[in-house]
């Protein structure tokens, strides 16, 4: 409607001007036109009905958050031997109270402490120099927390004063780039930074250790340690790799000024299987800010890649041929054989036309003995080799087995009593008693499983007791046997297979017997015809698998194949944070290798130096599983030894390892990051300053929000009397003038 009125006004003005074309006097024309214009304008004004709106507003008091870093990195000194960063920050805040109070007029000053997350705190407590306790620093998270705010709803955060060392290990850990930057800008608040601590303290740290989760025994593995050194000149530092207190590898690192990060490779070849905690450590140099980050522990599982077997045969025979064939074909076995092809009494001709090599007694029974997982004597007597000093090595073999090795003696007319092993160190590890003079027999017989043999993995040809007995009964008769006397359970021995028709001292002669010797195991097979269980059985139409199954099972049992151990223990996590409890899950199996419910499991936690630092007990559930929990130990490397008591069997043992981290990320890197804080300030439009300084720096804050308060008031302008008077006056004036001038 206003548009139409404007058109009408314009039209009337135009009409008046056209009407006045005939008027010669310019003055009169101008007067009439101006009167018309005034009238038109006044009419428009009245039609438009303008009014004045009066609104009452107020400026809302915004918030300013003061964020003070309360993480552990603030405990480092600003300068060596000086006050800590936390103390410097608190002192600054105390000195700035006056400035902050002045701000309070425009903005409410809120105090926040932050580390891993942010929490409101009052300024007085923030001004107190308390040591930091937080385990991580997350600046972005703290900013978001403060912006979200716990203040009165509707109060916007106008700015932030951040007092921190910048050692962020949260979202900004790798710097202000990409997503981190976008997230920071999304908070939308200028961050004014006061950086505490600008010099990196003097510190040598093992920052990271890179190694595979597991290694093969006797294979060299390399541990890549990353070391960080700040504030050192040219110095030599010894870096060692320790396994449970013993040094297994070391290297010397030459520090150079200006270079911070060093890679140190440490190589070693583990010689035993198991789970171990290893530690990379450097000595603590004088003046170092942090001593705890000079070592780092990790857990390494050492497994066997192939079972290494030494087979020594006193003469070639079918038993030797089929056992060698079986072991050679097994991809899990690394076989080293020595067969005596010629004895002293044999006369084959000139030596240089023979392919024979000297029997390396000193090598295989000396140094190299430890490298074998199992040693098998097959129809081998030691006496013919006395000239090679073999008797000196027999105690070696005994200690090898007691220390965890495996030994098997297979029959023949040079084994057991015929080999005159009675009274030798070998007799201490044999699974039977090779009493002198017992002799041998060539009377065919059929062996029979004993009660223990029915369930034992060594004599398990097929699963299931009844099926197993049937399988053994179906095998051909054995043609001969070395007579030996059985040993009792007191010596840790068990007879698994016996000859009921052949008696020694009134008891059936053992055919297959096993024995636990110290940490190792021993097997005795008193016949030289176990090969008939394969080749001859095949001729009888049964398939030749019994020989292979027997020796496979025997070898796995001898070397303690993990799947056969009755007790297994695993840590929940191989490395735990300091302060977290240490837990292990345990699986217990009974003598028949099924779960053993109700068995008691006792675990002891050993520290690096052998001290017992914890003890826990548990009962196995119906599926044989149990849990052992230890309260949080101090940082370091720990070994747990578990033993389970299943009624009817000797106690089984198992071990595992766990490491408790000595320093989280917060403590290992002591360096402040002022440049990160500078970037944060610049990106968000705040100021950056460092300590020491006197008083509050200039703070950039967002403009306070202006908010409507109270009622609106509309004041109309057009209904004043003098607008109407003006319109009337202009219209009437024009009319009078026109009449006067004779236009109408």
């Amino acid at each position: 409607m206003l548009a139409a009125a404007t058109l009408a006004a314009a039209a009337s003005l135009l009409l008046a001007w056209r009407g006045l074309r005939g008027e010669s006097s310019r003055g009169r024309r101008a007067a009439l036109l101006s009167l018309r214009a005034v009238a038109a304008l006044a009419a428009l004004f009245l039609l438009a009905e303008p009014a004045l709106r009066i609104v009452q507003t107020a400026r809302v008091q915004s918030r300013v958050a003061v964020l003070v870093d309360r993480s552990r990195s603030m405990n480092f000194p600003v300068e060596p031997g000086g006050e800590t960063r936390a103390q410097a920050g608190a002192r600054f805040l105390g000195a700035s109270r006056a400035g902050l109070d002045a701000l309070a007029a425009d903005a409410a000053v809120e105090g926040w402490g932050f580390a891993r997350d942010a929490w409101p705190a009052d300024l007085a407590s923030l001004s107190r120099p308390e040591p930091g306790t937080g385990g991580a620093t997350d600046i972005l998270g703290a900013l978001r927390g403060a912006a979200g705010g716990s203040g009165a709803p509707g109060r916007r955060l106008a700015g932030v004063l951040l007092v921190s060392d910048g050692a962020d290990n949260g979202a900004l850990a790798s710097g202000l780039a990409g997503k981190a930057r976008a997230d920071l800008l999304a908070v939308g608040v200028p961050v004014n930074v006061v950086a505490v601590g600008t010099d990196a303290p003097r510190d040598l740290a093992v920052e990271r250790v890179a190694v595979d989760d597991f290694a093969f025994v006797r294979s060299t593995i390399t541990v890549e340690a990353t070391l960080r050194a700040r504030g050192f000149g040219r110095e030599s530092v010894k870096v060692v790799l320790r396994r449970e207190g013993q040094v297994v590898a070391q290297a010397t690192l030459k520090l150079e000024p200006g270079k911070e990060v060093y890679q140190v490779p440490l190589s070693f070849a583990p010689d035993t299987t198991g789970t171990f905690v290893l530690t990379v450590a450097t000595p603590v140099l004088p003046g170092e800010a942090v001593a705890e980050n000079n070592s780092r522990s990790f857990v390494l599982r050492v497994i066997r890649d192939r079972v290494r077997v030494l087979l020594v045969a006193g003469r070639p025979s079918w038993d030797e041929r089929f056992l060698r064939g079986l072991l050679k074909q097994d991809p899990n076995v690394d076989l080293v054989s020595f067969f005596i092809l010629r004895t002293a009494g044999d006369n084959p001709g000139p030596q240089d036309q023979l392919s024979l090599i000297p029997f390396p007694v000193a090598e295989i029974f000396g140094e190299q003995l430890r490298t074998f997982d199992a040693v098998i004597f097959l129809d081998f007597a030691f006496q013919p080799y006395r000239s090679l000093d073999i008797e000196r090595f027999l105690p070696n073999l005994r200690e090898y087995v007691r220390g965890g090795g495996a030994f098997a003696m297979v029959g023949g007319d040079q084994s057991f009593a015929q080999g005159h092993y009675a009274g030798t160190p070998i007799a201490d590890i044999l699974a039977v008693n090779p009493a002198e003079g017992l002799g041998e027999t060539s009377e065919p017989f059929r062996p029979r499983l004993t009660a223990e043999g029915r369930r034992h993995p060594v004599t398990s040809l097929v699963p299931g007791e009844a099926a197993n007995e049937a399988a053994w009964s179906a095998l051909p008769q054995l043609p001969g046997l070395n007579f030996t006397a059985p040993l009792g359970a007191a010596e840790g021995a068990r007879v698994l297979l016996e000859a009921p028709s052949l008696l020694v001292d009134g008891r059936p002669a053992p055919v297959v017997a096993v024995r636990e010797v110290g940490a190792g195991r021993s097997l005795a097979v008193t016949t030289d015809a176990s090969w008939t269980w394969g080749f001859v059985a095949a001729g009888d139409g049964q398939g030749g698998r019994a020989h292979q199954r027997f020796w496979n099972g025997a070898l796995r049992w001898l070397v303690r194949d993990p799947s056969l151990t009755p007790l297994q223990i695993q840590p929940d996590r191989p490395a735990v944070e300091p302060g977290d409890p240490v837990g292990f899950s345990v699986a217990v199996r009974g003598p028949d290798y099924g779960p053993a419910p109700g068995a008691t499991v006792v675990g002891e936690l050993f520290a690096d130096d052998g001290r017992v630092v914890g003890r826990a007990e548990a009962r196995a559930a119906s599926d044989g599983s149990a849990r052992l929990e230890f309260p949080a130990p101090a940082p370091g490397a720990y070994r747990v030894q578990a033993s389970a008591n299943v009624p009817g069997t000797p106690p089984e043992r198992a071990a595992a390892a766990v490491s408790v981290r000595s320093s989280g990320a917060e403590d290992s890197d002591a360096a402040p990051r002022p440049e990160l804080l500078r970037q944060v300030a610049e990106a968000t439009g705040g100021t950056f300053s460092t300590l020491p300084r006197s008083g509050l720096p200039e703070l950039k804050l967002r403009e306070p929000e202006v908010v409507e308060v109270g009622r609106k008031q509309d004041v109309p302008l057009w209904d004043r009397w003098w607008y109407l008077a003006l319109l009337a006056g202009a219209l009437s004036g024009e009319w009078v003038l026109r009449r006067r001038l004779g236009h109408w």
Partner: protein
Amino acid sequence: MRRRTFLQTAALGAASLALPRAARGMGEASRIAIGQIEHGGRWNPRPSALRRLSWELAQRTSIDASGDGVPVRLSGPAVHTHPFLYLAGDGAMPPLPDADLGVLRRHLQYGGFLLVDAADGSDGSGFDTSVRRELQRLLPASPVTRIPREHVLYKSFYLLDHQGGRVLVHPWLDGQFVNGRLAVVYSQNDLGGAWARGQLGDWEYDCSPGGEPQRESAFRLGVNLAMYALCTDYKDDAVHLPFILRRRS
């Protein structure tokens, strides 16, 4: 006086019974007995050969070999008690029944060893054609090929360069491999003829053209064959290599 001496001798005799006797193996089954296959042709042309070979084995090596070869019928039950089988012949041999071949094939596949010896020194006729036909039927997937010079058979005990038997038809041996292992060895040079030794201690046959050195190489080959049957590729193990290389050069 006479009574005293009598009692003394009796006491000594009794005492000697208590002396430990040199152990001779746990019965016959422990000793290495070579089984000789009975077939339709002349299957035992050299009756004393295996006995003499066993004697040589006992003399020269630590192998505990039993005396004569044991006649073995492929149709009988005892085939598998002899992992080492010997097949000799003089003149043509009728085809073996399929069942017998099946037994022999299974024997070889389970790890057995077969030595075939042509007593008539034939080449392209007589025993040679019969045996090649039978070996082809026995292991159709493994052709009869020449055993390479570097094969471990030639260094399983002796380092052998040349070989022969009673005759020297070919200075090499043929064989068939099963799963990479030499399961059948075929000699056309009448090894049995070189080994055969009469009751009076004289060699039954002369070796030509090499004479006594050729006989010696025949025995060495026999020892190597037995060693190979018992130790398979033992001499190929890495630990032996430096020694063998040194000796060979």
